[in-house]
Every structure is written in C-alpha cells, then in structure tokens.
C-alpha cells in the first residue's frame, strides 16, 4: 500500500527519522519495501511515499490510521485520530434489521453477508472537481480523481480503511436500500461498464426495483454520482470476508474487496461516515438533514481473552514480567486487567487476535523479535541420520557421477506433445497423464510420465550449443493417474531397527491419498558423443559411447547398490532402436529399458549422432538394494585360464549370457568365472549368419594349485556339454 508520509504524520507524532520509522515498522511486522519520491503529474506537489507490504492477516494495517496506530504502538509514542463528529452520526438510528430516517430506509435481509450497514444522507451538494490538496493526496496514494464527493469517500477508504460508496439518492427507488443475496440470473451493470451475471453467492445492495451495487466490490452504473447529483447517500457497511471473497474470486477484486476480504473493523462504519461527511461538506457543500442510519445485526463488542504470562514466556523463551506484557498489549489498544492470568480485551480492529497464542505473538512483536536471545534447544540429543532408502538413493546418484554423468534437473511439468515428439509408446496406459486444471501454458500442462523426454530435450539443447559430448542423469518423480505397482513409501521417519509409534494404532499408508496420483521415483540417463575428455587422437569408434558403454554404467550402478540379479533381455520399445534395446530386469521384475535412441527420435530432436539412454524405476531398484558388503577372503592359490570359442547362429537363442550360463553349468566346481572376450562374424569361415564367440574361463581351487589334468578334464566336460547338449560347434 502507498502511504504518503505527510498524511501519516498528521496522525503520528514521533521523534523518529523516516529511516528509523521504516525500520521500526519492518521489524514490527509491517514491511516497508521501499520509498518513492513522488511528484504530481502537473508538478504541483511532491511527497515521500512509503511502500508497505501487508500480510493477509492484517487488514487493520491497510490504512493511514492503521499504520500510524501500529507505529505508535511499537515506538510507544501513540497516535491521534481525525476529529470529525456530527450529532446526526453520533446519535444514529440503530436497529437490528430495518431503520428509516426521513426518506431513507435501510433493510438487511442477509445478516450473514452484511452484519452491519450504516448510511448517511447529505442534501444540496455541488458536485465538481476536487480541490488540489485532495486531488494530490489521492494521486500520491495511486487513486484516480473522479469528483469531489467520490474523492472524499476514497480519501476515507485510504485514511481509515473503511470502504464506502456514494449513491445518487434520487435514483434509489423509494429511498429504500435492501441488502440481500442476488437472485439466480440477476444482472447488474457495474461502474466499469461491465454487465455481471449474479447468483445467490453474491451479496448485493438493491432497491425495490433490483440490484444497484455489488456489495463490497463495486457500485452500479445506474445509481452513480453525476455532475447533476444534488443528494448523496453515503454507504459505510461491514461485509463478511468469505462472502466478498467468493464473489471477487469469480468477478475480480477491487480496493474495496481487498480490504473486506482481510477484515475491516465492524465498528468503523460510523466514524467513517462522520469523516466523509466532514470532507464532503468542506469540498462540495450541502447539509446533513437526517440522522444517520445504523442497522447492525450484532453488537460487535471487543473480545475478551486470557493470557498466562508464564505460558507466554514458555513459548517465547523469554523472562518478561506480567506488567511488561500488559504494557505491551495496552500499547496495541488492548484493555488489560493485570492478574494471573491477564484479562485482555482486544479492540475490534484486530479480529486476528482470537486466542492466547495470538496475544503471545503480539507481546513478541512489541518486545521485538531481535530482543529475544537465541538458545540452542537441549532437545537435540538423538543423532540424526538418513534412512536406508535415502542413503541408497544418494549412493545411486554418486555411482552415476563416478561413471562420468552429470546430475540434471528438469521440470516436473510437461505436455502430451512432448510424448509424441519422442515416440513415447502410444498405448492408453502410457499416454494417460496427470493434467493440471490451471496450467501456466500448454507446454507445462501435464505432470511428467517419464524422465527421458526432458533428457532428450537437454541433449538437443546441448547439441544446439555445439556441445557434442553429453552425459546426463536425473533422479526424479514421475506421475501416473493410478497406482500401477507396489512401491516403498518415501515418507518414513523411522531409522532402521525402530518401530514408529502410530497414534490410535491406525496404520494408514503415508505419502498418497485416495485422490492423489501415483508417484514413482525414476533414474534415467542419456549419453551422446564421447565419455572422455581430450579424445583428440582416438578414432570415433574408440572414443564414442555405444550400447555396451551405457550398459556397463547400468551394471556398475546396480553392482554398486548390491544388486546381483540384474539381467538384460532384447526388447522392443518405440523410443529405441529396434535392434539395440534391452529390458532391464531384476529377478522377475522389469526395472525399465535401455538402448540406443531410435534414429527417428534422434532426428526429431536434431541430435548430431546416436544417443544412448536408460530409464529405470528407482523405487524398485532400491527395494532390493543394499549397502552392506561381506568381505570374501582373497584366494591364496593362483588361477588358471582356459579359452574356448564356439560358432553359433546369430540369434537370441545363442546369446552370450545363455552360453556363459551353459558353460558355467558344465564347468565343475573349480570354475570361477566365464567372460566373453571376443565376438566376430566371418561368412567364409563360419557360414552366413553365424558368428564366433570366445570365452575366457578362470579355474581356481581354495586349497591348491590345479593340475593340468584336472583342467583338461573340466574343459573336456564343457566341450562335450556345448556340443552335445547345447548343439554348438566348439572351435578347435
């Protein structure tokens, strides 16, 4: 809010400099975000403006008086009020639902939406331009000058915080103001020349003909003040914050609704009428001919709350005495009866103070947060540590970084078009997305279903910057409309070995609820170009990443997480090259997919060369992962090596992993490992669509060096098994 300094000083007498005042307010809960040196458009006035930022609980600070009151309370200087008083206002006609004074009748039909409506008639006014001082004040505050009467009401809004409205009284049918809910389908032309369709959630000011104003938001066009108006009816009412907010959320807010939503003092209606009347009589002439009307459906008495000084100190960690606390609260306008506890009467401009804890906060604010000495809590005796899953997740990231991949972050929000671009599988399950109902843009209108599309985009972005070598991984959450598989909860405070204490023995699963989408943690990576720095003298086929390089990284990560049952099976996936794609499985479960990105996808992203990628379920990986390692004694006796090569058809039935398993099965008790080390095809030598795979077998005994005879025997057994049982030719 714009607070002109000279206006503020009318009600605040203080020795503080402007800078000191701003610091006091900022540290006292009303942030002064800055100053403006303001000059009127016609150059006729200058002013210093404080730009304040008001928290949504403090509607009382949305006025000049409110700021003066708070500054006076914080500094102890106090503040003053505008001196405007009229007997017709002081002795307003009070009634609980309907009151009449002369030609004016006010009736409240909806006491929920409008608990209080005060009104005052002024006759014989002369509507015209405002005097300079009024115009400048409003311009400095950021309000457009309209005419002297409307300007006076706006002046009061800014000064006291009470929104007001001025009706051309002659246009109110029968002089009868009715505050009610709008009829379904009722229409109203507002001051800003827009037609609004209203309904029963909107509170309106009406006459017997129909709505004339949208309560707490904007007046109607038909009854507005004009040049020719001679009789004005001033409205000063109290509206329900929730009712006003419901309407303003739908139709848009105004200065008035902004204040009503944040609560206006219900006892401000009459002082505001008096102040407005004073200003109007000064600037537009006229006379008050009738008593004001004050229809109020409640008595709006100050709230009484008790506060235990001991409790206050226990919460703040202070050692203040009760008299000091009482003095602080009095400075804020409370009436305090000392005793144990303190009996506090809270002024009606502070509806946010409802409970003991709210008073504690006020004591802290007046005392000054900076005057509370910090202590380090003595409760922090237990050692904090990460849970097993959290440590495993960190380790997974570390392993990938150790393999040379940089950690990447991408947005959780994406769109369906991104899935088309990367040829994401088109089945209904793959394409069902969690959609936002109020996205910023269509590009960010759905929650991501996978991590790879964003990694592809990151690779493309690097390529556009001529960065050809890309190695990125991301660990992140993906979202599915429904739960698909069982998942470990990420929300566990329980260190290993402890059981959580569950209140009421109610073991509700944490992390998600019935209406929430399923969230899964994934790990994904993309590689392109070379994994080496400085590969200037290596041929591309040696320097570049390929399928096996990335597979090696997946294996390193899995091994590092203590997973031994990971395997790779030929797989078809629309995002990947049909011949270079594998499903990664852990035992019986599918973790995800890896391979070379399909050429058409690479083209869609303008990638300069082949890219390799994987995306796996981290949740599933971590379910079985472990950081525990048991030491295996080092073997004392040397190993013996034997190589063998088999000629097999180029088919998945004779994959390296299957042949190695067959060899291991036949190799006997001393066979320690079987590793393929050479693969090549030669149509002349082996026949078309055949290839040779060479394996190195390592044999070792625990207690001695193996003899040649023993090794030859084992190898013979392997040969026999391969030729007779597996049906392959062993090269001699």
């Amino acid at each position, binding site marked *: 809010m714009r607070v002109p300094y000279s206006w503020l000083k009318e009600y605040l007498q203080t020795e503080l400099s402007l800078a000191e005042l701003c610091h006091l307010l900022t540290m006292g809960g009303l942030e002064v975000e800055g100053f403006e040196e303001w000059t009127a458009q016609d150059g006729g006035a200058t002013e210093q403006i404080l730009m304040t930022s008001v928290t*949504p609980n*403090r509607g009382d600070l949305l006025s000049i008086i409110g700021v003066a009151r708070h500054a006076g309370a914080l500094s102890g200087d106090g503040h003053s009020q505008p001196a405007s008083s009229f007997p017709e206002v002081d002795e307003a006609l009070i009634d609980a639902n309907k009151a009449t004074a002369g030609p004016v009748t006010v009736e409240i039909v909806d006491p929920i939406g409008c608990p209080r409506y005060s009104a005052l008639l002024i006759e014989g006014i002369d509507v015209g331009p405002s005097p300079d001082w009024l115009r400048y004040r409003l311009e400095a505050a950021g309000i457009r000058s309209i005419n002297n009467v409307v300007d006076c009401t706006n002046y009061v809004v800014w000064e006291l915080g009470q929104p007001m409205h001025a009706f051309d009284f002659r246009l109110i049918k029968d002089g009868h103001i009715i505050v009610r809910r709008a009829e379904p389908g009722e229409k109203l032309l507002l001051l800003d020349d827009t037609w609004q369709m209203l309904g029963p959630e909107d509170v309106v000011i009406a006459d017997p003909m129909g709505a004339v104003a949208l309560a707490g938001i904007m007046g109607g066009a038909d009854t507005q003040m004009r040049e020719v108006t001679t009789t004005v009816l001033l409205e000063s009412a109290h509206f329900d914050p929730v009712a006003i907010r419901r309407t303003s959320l739908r139709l848009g807010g105004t200065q008035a609704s902004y204040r009503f939503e944040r609560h206006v003092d219900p006892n401000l209606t009459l002082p505001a009428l008096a102040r407005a009347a004073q200003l109007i009589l000064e600037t537009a002439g006229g006379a008050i001919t009738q008593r004001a009307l004050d229809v109020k459906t409640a008595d709006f008495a100050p709230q009484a709350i008790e506060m235990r000084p001991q409790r206050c100190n226990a919460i*703040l*960690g202070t050692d203040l005495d009760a008299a000091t606390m009482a003095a602080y609260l009095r400075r804020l306008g409370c009436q305090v009866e000392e005793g144990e506890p303190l009996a506090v009467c809270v002024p009606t401009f502070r509806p946010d103070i409802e409970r003991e804890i709210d008073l504690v906060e006020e004591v802290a604010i007046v005392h000054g947060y900076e005057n509370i000495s910090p202590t380090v809590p003595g409760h922090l*005796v237990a050692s*904090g540590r*990460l849970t097993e899953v959290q440590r495993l997740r960190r380790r997974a990231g570390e392993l990938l970084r150790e393999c040379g991949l*940089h950690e990447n972050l991408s947005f959780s929000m994406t769109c369906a078009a991104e899935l088309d671009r990367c040829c994401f599988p088109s089945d209904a399950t793959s394409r069902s997305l969690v959609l936002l109902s109020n996205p910023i843009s269509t590009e960010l209108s759905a929650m991501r279903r996978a991590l790879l599309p964003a990694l592809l985009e990151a*690779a493309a972005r690097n390529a556009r910057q001529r960065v050809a070598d890309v190695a*990125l991984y991301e660990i992140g959450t993906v979202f599915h409309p429904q739960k698909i598989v069982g998942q470990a909860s990420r929300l566990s405070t329980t260190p290993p070995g402890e059981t959580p204490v569950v209140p009421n023995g109610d073991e509700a699963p944490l992390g998600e609820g019935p209406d929430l989408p399923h969230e899964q943690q994934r790990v994904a990576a993309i590689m392109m170009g070379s994994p080496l720095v400085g590969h200037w003298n290596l041929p591309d086929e040696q320097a570049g990443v390929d399928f096996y390089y990335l597979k090696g990284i997946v294996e390193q990560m899995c091994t590092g997480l203590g997973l031994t049952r990971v395997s790779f099976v030929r797989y078809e996936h629309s995002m990947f090259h049909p011949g270079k794609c594998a499903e990664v499985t852990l035992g019986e479960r599918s973790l995800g997919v890896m391979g070379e990105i399909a050429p058409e996808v690479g083209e869609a992203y303008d990638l300069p060369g082949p890219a390799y990628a994987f995306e796996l379920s981290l949740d599933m990986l971590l379910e079985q992962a472990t950081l525990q390692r048991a030491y295996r004694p080092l073997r004392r006796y040397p190993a013996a090596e034997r190589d063998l090569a088999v000629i097999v058809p180029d088919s998945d039935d004779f994959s390296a992993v299957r042949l190695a398993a067959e060899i291991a099965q036949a190799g006997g008790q001393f066979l320690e490992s079987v590793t393929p080390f050479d693969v090549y095809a030669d149509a002349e030598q082996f026949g078309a669509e055949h290839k040779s795979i060479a394996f190195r077998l390592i044999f070792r005994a625990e207690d001695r060096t193996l003899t040649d005879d023993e090794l030859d025997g084992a190898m013979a057994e392997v040969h026999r098994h391969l030729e007779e049982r597996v049906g392959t030719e062993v090269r001699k």
Partner: protein
Amino acid sequence: MDDKLEQLRQQAVETFQAAADEEQLEQARIEYLGRHGQLREIMKDLGSVSPELRPALGKLANQVSREVEQAFAQRQEQIAAQVASQEAEAIDVTLPGRAPRVGKQHPLLATLEEMIEIFLGLGFTVVEGPDVENYYYSFEALNYPELHPAMDEQMTFYISDNALLRSQTSPVQIRVMEQQQPPVRIVAPGRCFRRDTVDATHCHTFYQLEGLLVDEGVTFADLKGTLEVFAREMFGPQCHMRFRPDFFPFTEPSAEIALTCIICGGEGCRVCGNTGWLEVGGSGMVDPNVLAGVGYDTETYTGYAFGVGVERLAMLRHGIDDIRLFYTGDMRFLQQF
C-alpha cells in the same frame, strides 16, 4: 703388475658399460683415461719396473690402453644411438590429457544436501512427502481458514478440487505428526510449485527445506538459536539470521527469516536491495490449532517450524545470476561445480 693392468682393464670396461648416459660415461672416462686417470698413473709406475720386464709390460700396457679406449668408444656410440632413438619417440607433452569425464552433482541439490547435513548433525531426520498433495494437507490441516486471502500467495497449481501441486513443503509436517508422537524432529526437502512467471529470479518450480521440532518446552528462542547455528555452519561465523514478524496460518508467532547478505556482509548492496539482509524463508512456532489437529496435547507440547528456499542460497554460493540455468541441462553449466 700384470695383474694390476688386467684388473684395471676389467674395471674400466665394466664401468663404461654400466654408464647409463653421457654424463656417467664422461665421468668414467676421466676416471680411467683422463690426464690423471688410473691408466696414466699405472704408466708412471712402469718407470720403476726392472728393465728386463719393461718391454713385455709396455706392450701389455699399450694393449690394455687400446682396449679400454675401444670400450669407451663403443659405449659412447651405444649411448648416442639410444638417445637418438628415444628422441624419435618424443611426444608433445602440451597436448590435452585424456580421461573419463568426472560427473558432477547439480549445484542446487549439492546445496540442499549440505543444508541437510547440518540438520542431520543437529539430530534431525529426513522425510519426504509427495509432490502432489491433497487439499486437506495443503491448507485445512495447516490452519488456512476457508477462502482466506493467504491462499492467494500460494499461487497453487490444481489437478482437481482435491489434488494440487504442493506450493510449500509444510504438508509434510502434518503427514509426519499424524504418524508419530513427540518428540518430532525432522527436515523435509522437496520440490514445490507456484504459478509464477519464469524470469531470472522466479520459477514455477523450486526447492524448499522444511524443518519441524515438536517436544516439551520448545521455544521461539530455540527456533532463533537453531537457525543461527544453520546460518553459521552454512556461510561462516559472520553470518546471522534476522527474524521479523510475518504471517503464516500454521505458525504463531510467525517470523520471516533473513540471512546477513553474504555478498556485502551486511553493508548493503544491489543483491540485497541495500538492506544488508536476504530473505530466505519463513518460520514460527507451530500454531496450537495445527498441533491439536493431529491430536497432540498443546499444553504439553510446543514446537517450531521453518521453511528455507534452496535456490537463493545456491545462487549466492556460486554467484549464479539466472535461476533458469538450473533447468537447462547445459553441460557447460553443470560441469563447473
């Protein structure tokens, strides 16, 4: 004398052959063939030998001298050839080195991890909640009154009336307290979302670290003390936290937390808007309504909570001037940390 000569010959030949380079060979030459070398010295002794033995010994001495000189020349040639051949293998040592790339942690998550380490050291444990939250945990359980303008500040993304992207990590407080009796001491890191337009300092996606401590006798002074420790550990002993009144529905009293500007050390600069302070988050004493809502006895237990933004701290630590860099995936950016 014969023996002496023979011994000398053997020694000299062996020494020459053992010489590894030109320098050692030259030293050996001086030792045996120099003007005061052993060969000259032994020649001098020839004068004292009886005349009848002299011719034979002279002949032998000459022969030894020739052989020694030959051995020297031969070794000299060998060494020269070796030097030439190694020179031919010489490489340009100034060309770039070659090694596997070292992967780097994302600066945002590295900062978050360091923050977490500090709180782990203070006895907090780490919990995480879902990115998509329901209305109850996001607002109702956090004491947001129905239709309160405080919700405007959250600029929430909605999926349905009841499902939304969390705009702060605070819902985790409720999820944890529902499951556990005091003492509770947790930090909850996580991704949050607000409908903010993206520019150099704003983004619709950001990270927060939430903290919650509930126990008997927890005070506002404890909150200040804990966050002071955090500020010191994170940015050094000259760094302090400033607390000033603010409003959050789920804390009372509430405080905005600001850090001594680490750019200017509190003197005031462009980054901190000349205030000397950088706003980093919100905090306060957990509102009794929140504690009562999860079934805690509010007379026995009090607690504090705080939420600290991660982006700003990471940007300050590294001098990063554009928040959008965090999400580009640019290798040139990521490899710098």
